[in-house]
């Protein structure tokens, strides 16, 4: 797919805030986030002609480049900081999973869970809390958190895989 200069400019205008917002939410350092966002757009422009809209949406494709750029950043700083547990470092399923419809399905599926089950999933997979931290926040035992988490997994598996 060939993009004109104007289309490339539109991609920058439409996605800069998304890319920067994503990166700064992960590393919490505005200057580094700006540098990495620039790196992402350099890669986007280098590879844009190989983008295949039959394989992924533009949003998913740019997200994947942003995530890979963050992976490289984490690896380069491995000595100084750990890769967050919630970071999907090696995923090969993003093209089928990462789209707006799947986020809507996840929201709908989470709403069918009991509140505590939903809270555990969000605190663990979005907020990055450990099961031990979640147990302390909820005032229940670690074992009980695991039981609730597994119940939530079973329900989500049925709901998300039946879609």
């Amino acid at each position: 797919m060939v993009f004109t200069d104007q289309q490339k400019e539109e991609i920058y205008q439409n996605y800069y805030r998304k890319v920067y917002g994503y990166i700064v939410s992960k590393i919490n350092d505005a200057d580094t986030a700006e540098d990495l966002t620039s790196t992402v757009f350099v890669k986007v422009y280098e590879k844009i002609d190989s983008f295949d809209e039959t394989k992924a949406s533009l949003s998913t494709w740019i997200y994947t480049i942003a995530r890979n750029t963050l992976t490289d950043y984490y690896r380069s700083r491995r000595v100084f900081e750990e890769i967050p547990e919630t970071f999907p470092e090696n995923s090969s399923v993003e093209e089928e999973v990462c789209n707006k419809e799947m986020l809507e399905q996840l929201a709908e599926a989470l709403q069918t869970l009991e509140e505590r089950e939903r809270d555990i999933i969000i605190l663990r997979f979005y907020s990055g809390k450990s099961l031990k931290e979640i147990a302390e926040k909820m005032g229940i035992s670690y074992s009980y958190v695991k039981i609730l988490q597994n119940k939530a997994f079973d329900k989500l598996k049925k709901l998300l895989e039946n879609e």
Partner: protein
Amino acid sequence: MEDKLKLLFDYQRFEKNQSLENLIQETENYYDRELSDEEMKFVAAAGELNANGRLRDKIINVKNKK
């Protein structure tokens, strides 16, 4: 399922879905806030409630009765 959830919640940080964002905010706001003195007393007085019911609902009930 864990990899799928990691990826979906990560993608949410990039491509925000408002319904999902509302659920996330509700959970994060609830668990990140400081409990008031009254709520702390309530928690201390009802040690078993977390095992069987939602502290969130019970605190809201107490506030509504005030």
